[in-house]
């Protein structure tokens, strides 16, 4: 914050202040992402050197880097099959979820109908139910109709997501009523209003719900473990389990797998992060 006063003196102090801030942040950031660096550098080392060098500076500075571990990963598991499975499954969960949950959130926020309160309370209560509580009954439900081992069984239970509904609800509550009024005066139906007016004005909400639901589901391990068998439909988190068998634990391979698993998501996130921050900023979360 800049105040008044002798410009020359202030600017020196200002520069010093900025520099210290920069330094503090840089050190903090470096310490913060140290584990990620560790992962990256470890993935470039031969397995035998990952542990012994964990405590030295060579854990964070690469030397004699090689891509052998990455080659190993491709040899051990059909990586791209798992990757595309994860992409499809999560894409469907997020995509279908955006449609289904936004419609519900809109109806709860903007329309008048009997039962609105009840449904809202139900949604909030279901927010608390942990997935692990319903995993076994769901397992019985799906097994009894023979739907194991498919994409469907990995997508369907997660499309309707109470948190997404609540986030859309909060956001739509905060939209100015004038938006719809002009369309309604012209005689447009609810759905058309939603599609042509609400949605374009809610891009940040859609972005943040998309990201939150993506992050909630893409690491799912227990459900696919129970419900699927072969690599044809299994997602990435299960592939890492094949590396964690009996020793010798090949740490280099495991870290290389981790890097490859996270890289696409990381890149996507870095590219779209401004949307995300804007989305959070204008969503109902912050008030």
């Amino acid at each position, binding site marked *: 914050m800049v105040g008044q006063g002798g410009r020359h003196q202030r600017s020196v102090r200002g520069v010093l202040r900025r520099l210290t801030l920069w330094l503090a942040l840089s050190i903090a950031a470096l310490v913060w992402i140290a584990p990620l660096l560790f992962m990256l550098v470890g993935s470039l080392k031969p397995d*035998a050197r990952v*542990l*012994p060098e964990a405590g030295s500076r060579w854990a964070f500075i690469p030397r004699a880097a090689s891509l052998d571990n990455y080659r190993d990963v491709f040899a*051990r598991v059909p990586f791209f099959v798992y990757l595309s499975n994860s992409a*499809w499954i999560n894409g*469907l969960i997020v*995509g*279908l979820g955006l*449609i*289904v949950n936004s419609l519900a959130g809109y109806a709860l926020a903007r329309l008048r109908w009997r039962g609105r309160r009840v449904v809202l309370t139900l949604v909030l209560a279901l927010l608390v139910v942990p997935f692990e509580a319903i995993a076994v009954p769901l*397992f*019985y439900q799906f*097994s009894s109709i*023979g739907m*194991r*081992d*498919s*994409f*469907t069984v990995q*997508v*369907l239970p997660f499309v309707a997501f109470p948190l997404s509904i609540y986030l859309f609800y909060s956001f739509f509550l905060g939209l100015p009523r004038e938006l719809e009024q002009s369309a309604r005066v012209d005689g447009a*139906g609810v*759905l*058309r209003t*939603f*599609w*042509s007016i609400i949605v374009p004005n809610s891009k940040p909400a859609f972005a943040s719900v998309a990201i939150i639901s993506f992050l909630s589901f893409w690491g799912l391990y227990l459900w696919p*473990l*129970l*419900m*699927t*068998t*072969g690599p*044809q*439909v299994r997602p990435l988190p*299960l592939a890492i*389990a*094949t590396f*964690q*068998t*009996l*020793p*010798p*634990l090949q740490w280099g391979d495991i870290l290389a797998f981790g890097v490859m698993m996270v890289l696409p998501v990381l890149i996507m996130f870095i590219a779209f992060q401004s949307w995300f921050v804007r989305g959070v900023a204008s969503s109902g979360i912050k008030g």
Partner: protein
Amino acid sequence: MSPLTVLFWIAGGLFLFSTTGGCRRASRSGAQAEVLSVWAHAGRADERRILQRQVSRFNEEHPEFQAQLTFLPEGSYNGQVQAAAVAGELPAVLELDGPYVANYAWQGKLRALDPILGEKLHDDLLPSLIEQGTYRDSLYAIGTFDSGLGLYAHRKALEAVGARIPRSAAEAWSVREFEEILASLASHDADGMVLDLGLNNIGEWYSYGFSPVLQSAGGDLVARGDSMRAEGILDGPESIAALQHIQDWIVQGYVDPNLDDAAFTAGRVGLSWSGHWKFSSYCPKGDCGDVVLVPLPDFGRGSRTGQGSWCWSITRECKNPELAMAFLRFLLRTPEILAMTNSNHAVPGTKSAVAASADYGMNGPLHLFASQLSGGYAVPRPRTPAYPIISSAFQKALLDIRAGGSVKKALHRAARVIDRDLADNHGYPDPQAARRDGGEGKR
């Protein structure tokens, strides 16, 4: 088109796409006669590769049938198989870890193999393997190899402290002798850690590697037989004494945590409590050099060691049991057994294969393992449907003991868990009897 219609077309399309699995769907198990579905655990790389090659060779010989192999992660193998079993989606041929056979047989998921095995093969199989796969007098699973458990040692280290080197299980060190050796080795060792107990492993290793110690001391996991119980046995004085020894070794700092799994090969420790699967890394290309194999110490009633390993079963959902048996017969051919055991150095599963094996011949480096099995020093893990609970409770007790907790309390807790499970399941009554009695069985 109204937005409503558009929306529903998109949603419907996505839904349909997801239903058809995006043009990709895991194949159904045993549904078609031509495909023989086979599940195996994703273990060590060499075993996986050999199994894959064996499946290809089988398929070449039988072009009209295709065996299809799927690997499941080993870590939660039993959980996954159990889930598939409940859903009725087991494959035709299922690999199981030996002690878990009784549980699946009790659940009625496995076919009895006696009618289709044939006498010649039955006689050729190692008796320990027949024993492993038998539940209530029916054979449900056969392995192509059995396991060996012992102590690998660096000969020079032993000679340096003046220890004798036992040549057979009858000559095993007493536990007191063993502890003296540990102390002497430690005094010559830089970090004092001279023993690798495989503590970097998790899971079944604990039950397999350390329950023989109970039996060697005169205790056991449970009182075997019809009135099975753990109380007084697992937490009896003999069992407690045996595990107290092990805890002492850990507490005194003799044991290397071995997170990099290289303690023995790097020479950090002189002794490694391990099994046949370590042979290829300890004795590369069969050249043992300085490495010798000795039996586990005698805790009072003689040296005892473990047995049992992965074995093959045919499930009730298999539509073509003859074909499945043909696959198992293929795996049990001497050259096929040797293909696997020459690589993983396990004990070959048939007498003919043992005779033909270089490792296990009279002067072979792994002869100790075979002699332990035939000499009665190997004790199978309890063959009961309660085994998963027994193993899980014992593993937990060992983890607590390892962390320095009271041995007596840990074993007592484990015994209580096991006994309560036995009571909950009404002693795991014979399902045949239950069916005969019209579902009443034992209440």
